[in-house]
């Protein structure tokens, strides 16, 4: 028989357990990406020289495979005497990789805020920090929320890579289940379906958020 339903129901709870790890990795990785991205974006716009160095760094990270970066972090830290848990190394790699994508998104958002806003704040004698925090960022963020949302989904879809360093997320769990029973069809298909459902749902959510934001800015 091609599809074994009994087996399917047997492994479903195990995979559901693993889905929690996947979601945790996604959430923590994305928070790192958001913070790091903002930091990189600000650095990048802080001066021509630093800016260039930061762009080169971003370009390098974006041009090389996430999988290699995961391996690198996982294997390099021990040679400095720091042993990282596979989950931690993997999540840092995810955050680093997507932080570089987010940096570009923030930059576009920040550059989209009209220059006159800075000038108006100077005229009101606001400090740079206050201006940035209270005036510029609140204007820059809403238009980029959907783009960031897309990267969240992209990051989520890359979490199976953590299976390469044996993090027990969904893919790794599916592989182990498969190797135990020599039935790969059910676990891998289920993982695929889980991803499909979560991706479609998040895509729909992003569209709703986008519409809300459009409505608000249209007012």
């Amino acid at each position, binding site marked *: 028989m*091609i599809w074994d339903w009994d087996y399917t129901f047997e492994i479903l709870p195990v995979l559901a357990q693993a889905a929690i790890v996947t979601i945790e990795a996604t959430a923590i990785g994305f928070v790192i990406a958001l913070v790091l991205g903002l930091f990189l974006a600000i650095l990048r716009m802080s001066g021509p020289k630093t800016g260039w160095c930061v762009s080169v760094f971003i370009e390098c990270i974006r041009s090389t495979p996430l*999988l290699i970066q995961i391996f690198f972090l996982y294997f390099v830290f021990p040679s400095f005497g720091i042993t990282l848990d596979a989950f931690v190394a993997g999540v840092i790699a995810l955050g680093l990789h997507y932080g570089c994508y987010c940096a570009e998104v923030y930059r576009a958002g920040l550059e989209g805020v009209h220059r006159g806003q800075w000038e108006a704040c100077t005229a009101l004698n606001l400090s740079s920090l206050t201006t940035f925090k209270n005036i510029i960022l609140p204007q820059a963020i809403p238009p980029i929320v959907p783009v960031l949302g897309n990267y969240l989904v992209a990051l989520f879809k890359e979490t199976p890579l953590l299976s390469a360093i044996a993090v027990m997320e969904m893919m790794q769990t599916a592989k182990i289940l498969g190797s135990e029973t020599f039935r*790969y069809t059910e676990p891998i298909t289920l993982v695929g379906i889980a991803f499909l459902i979560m991706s479609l749902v998040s895509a729909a959510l992003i569209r709703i958020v986008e519409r809300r934001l459009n409505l608000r800015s249209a007012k």
Partner: protein
Amino acid sequence: MGTFSLSVMLVGAVITLAALATSHTFSVFFPGLLEGAWLTVQIAVCGSLLAVVMGTVSGLAKLYGPRPLRWLAVTYIEIFRGTSALVQLFWLFFALPLFGISLEPFTVAVLGLGLNVGAYGAEVVRGAVQSVSRSQWEATIALNMTRLQALRRIILPQAFIAMIPPWGNLFIELLKSTALVSLITLSDLAFKAQEMNQTTMRTIPIFTLVLLMYLVMSLCITIGMKRLEKTAAKGMPRGRSV
């Protein structure tokens, strides 16, 4: 980044690689890694070709196809965009044989990555065709052209120019995804790196070389696509249609 900065990076990366090739610490790893890099290039090139074909066909089918074809295209696009590349590779590699279809790992790699990126490409093609302004269609009607003539001679050539930058990004994504094939037993660059790492535990030199090699390949794609865009967009105003 501008083409100049990118070129500077490329030259820098190549010089560093060349310098490391002569250094004793690094040079032992070179031949093995180059072998892996060659397989990576092969997979990337074949996968990209498949992606372009799939992207164009399904993108146009979604826009202009008769209803059943349109549904087929939409299903393909949603499934391959909605699940992740590694899941697709594993499925083709582990699950498909149980349906009686066993493919060579290389075929699985090209098929998996090509189909995955092709689904994203379909949206690129669709977006680019739709970005050509309606008034261009109207001009073709006023000149009594058929829809097919208009699409082939007027709309697609303009869409093609708009497609170049996003396709460039997709080719980079595909190149980066080739590292996943190391997980289905193909000895590409990523596989060689891990293999050497396990036997020698010299993580830093090995992964430095590997990252540099990927960087060189990516930069070649980025710079190549920028030049292609420049040639194709000769005489065209940037970012708006007349």
